[in-house]
């Protein structure tokens, strides 16, 4: 197999629940296939669980943003070459830079630390649900619940005043929207950076009991730009992703009543329900990229040095070689091994926080609102097919 097929990235969904059908067809025939990038670069698209995992676990594939060609258009024009990652934005770095920053944070996001936050997260969740109930018998679940819960949690952890959330929530949405031009996205990103940089300077003078203050005082000799980069990364990754999983997960459960009945009958299923939602609804829908630093054999083809590889996490999570009946949403299935948090040394740093937020969030939502239902037909729910992170723009719900 020489990978003669050149395709463009499939982005069209037939329904809210399944990734683009073309991805499944590609996975069956050519799990690594040539992909024509919008800037003309001839790279690769990987769709099988085995090969996505292999590339993400192989350090000969770089995460450095300046090496990547983007598989998605931004705004009207072709995507511009990206600059190197800003100081502290370790998601776009390789070892040893990546390691230096990540190691400063891994101790903060351990399973134990996150479990210790459970009580506080439960308080935040219940307060939001109380407020939602006070609105009457209907609400937009995204603005009432799915977005505020992870935003409040990450703000508290980082030491960002929640009152100032409009500064970063609007700009995060703008930066991640595919219609936004490169220039506008960069400008939005710079505004978030300015906001965090200002906060870092305040923490130097008046430290608190929070992560930004911890980084200031860490003794790791980080300058303001580095802490700012780390803070921006945590802030964006911490609220946008979990918010979308809470919204989309609720839509999925409400649309699969027999699964919701099973969860309600046995609340201990919530941990596995979260894993299955992560597998079934893979919100990082495109944009996971690696670029070969040298020639590497993958699935019988040679990826040449300098070629970018687009890794489809949604396709990998629907691979029948890894998951039986992959198209079925089943809260009882073994879902471990999904790639929704990635794989390799860049695997999501905040995944244990995300799990706890979702476990507590879904459990409380369906317990406190036993009659929760969709307020509009499924096909009227506005979907985030236009965003790097999939989800719902709004989720009208009702209860009695």
């Amino acid at each position, binding site marked *: 197999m020489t990978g003669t097929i050149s395709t463009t990235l499939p982005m069209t969904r037939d329904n809210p629940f399944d990734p683009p059908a073309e991805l499944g067809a590609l996975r069956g025939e050519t799990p690594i296939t040539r992909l024509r990038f919008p800037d003309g670069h001839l790279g690769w698209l990987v769709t099988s669980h085995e090969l996505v995992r292999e590339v993400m*676990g192989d350090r000969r594939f770089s995460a450095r943003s300046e090496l990547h060609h983007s598989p998605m258009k931004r705004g009207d024009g072709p995507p511009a070459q990206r600059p190197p990652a800003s100081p502290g934005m370790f998601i776009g770095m390789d070892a040893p830079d990546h390691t230096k920053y990540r190691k400063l944070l*891994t*101790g903060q996001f*351990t399973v134990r630390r996150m479990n210790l936050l459970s009580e506080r997260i439960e308080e935040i969740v219940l307060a939001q649900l109380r407020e939602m109930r006070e609105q009457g018998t209907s609400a937009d679940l995204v603005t009432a619940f799915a977005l505020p819960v992870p935003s409040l949690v990450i703000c508290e952890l980082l030491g960002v005043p929640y009152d100032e959330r409009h500064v970063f929530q609007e700009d995060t949405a703008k930066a991640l929207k595919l219609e936004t031009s490169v220039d506008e996205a960069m400008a939005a990103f710079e505004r978030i950076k300015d906001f965090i940089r200002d906060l870092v300077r305040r923490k130097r003078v008046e430290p608190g009991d929070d992560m930004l203050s911890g980084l200031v005082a860490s003794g790791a000799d980080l300058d303001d730009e580095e802490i700012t980069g780390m803070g921006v990364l945590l802030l964006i990754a911490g609220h946008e992703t979990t918010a979308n999983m809470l919204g989309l997960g609720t839509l999925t459960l409400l649309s699969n009543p027999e699964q919701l009945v099973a969860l309600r009958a046995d609340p201990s299923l919530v941990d596995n329900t979260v894993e299955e939602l992560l597998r079934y609804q893979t919100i990082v829908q495109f944009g996971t990229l690696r670029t070969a630093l040298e020639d590497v054999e993958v699935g019988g083809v040679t990826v040449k040095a300098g070629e970018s590889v687009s890794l489809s996490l949604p396709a990998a999570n629907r691979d029948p070689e890894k998951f039986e009946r992959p198209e079925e949403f089943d809260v009882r299935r073994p879902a471990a091994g999904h790639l929704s948090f990635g794989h*390799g040394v860049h695997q999501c740093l905040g995944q244990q926080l995300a*799990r706890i937020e979702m476990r507590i969030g879904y459990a409380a939502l369906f317990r406190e609102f036993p009659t929760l239902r969709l307020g509009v037909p499924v096909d009227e729910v506005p979907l985030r097919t236009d965003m790097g992170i999939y989800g719902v723009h709004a989720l009208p719900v009702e209860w009695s």
Partner: protein
Amino acid sequence: MKVEADSAKCCGSGMCVLTDPAVFDQSEDDGTVVVLVPEPSEDHHAAAREAAALCPAGAITVHE
């Protein structure tokens, strides 16, 4: 069974602790892997194997 972990490779994802907290822990300092029970009893063998398979950094080895 013997369980080994290479904390230099570990990226602190916590997958091992999530899979079997009786066998694995994470250090308080940097969140890297700590093997609590290097020779786990048989009822932990399946979980230890799963933890090794799930580890994103390939830091856990199980010798049968």
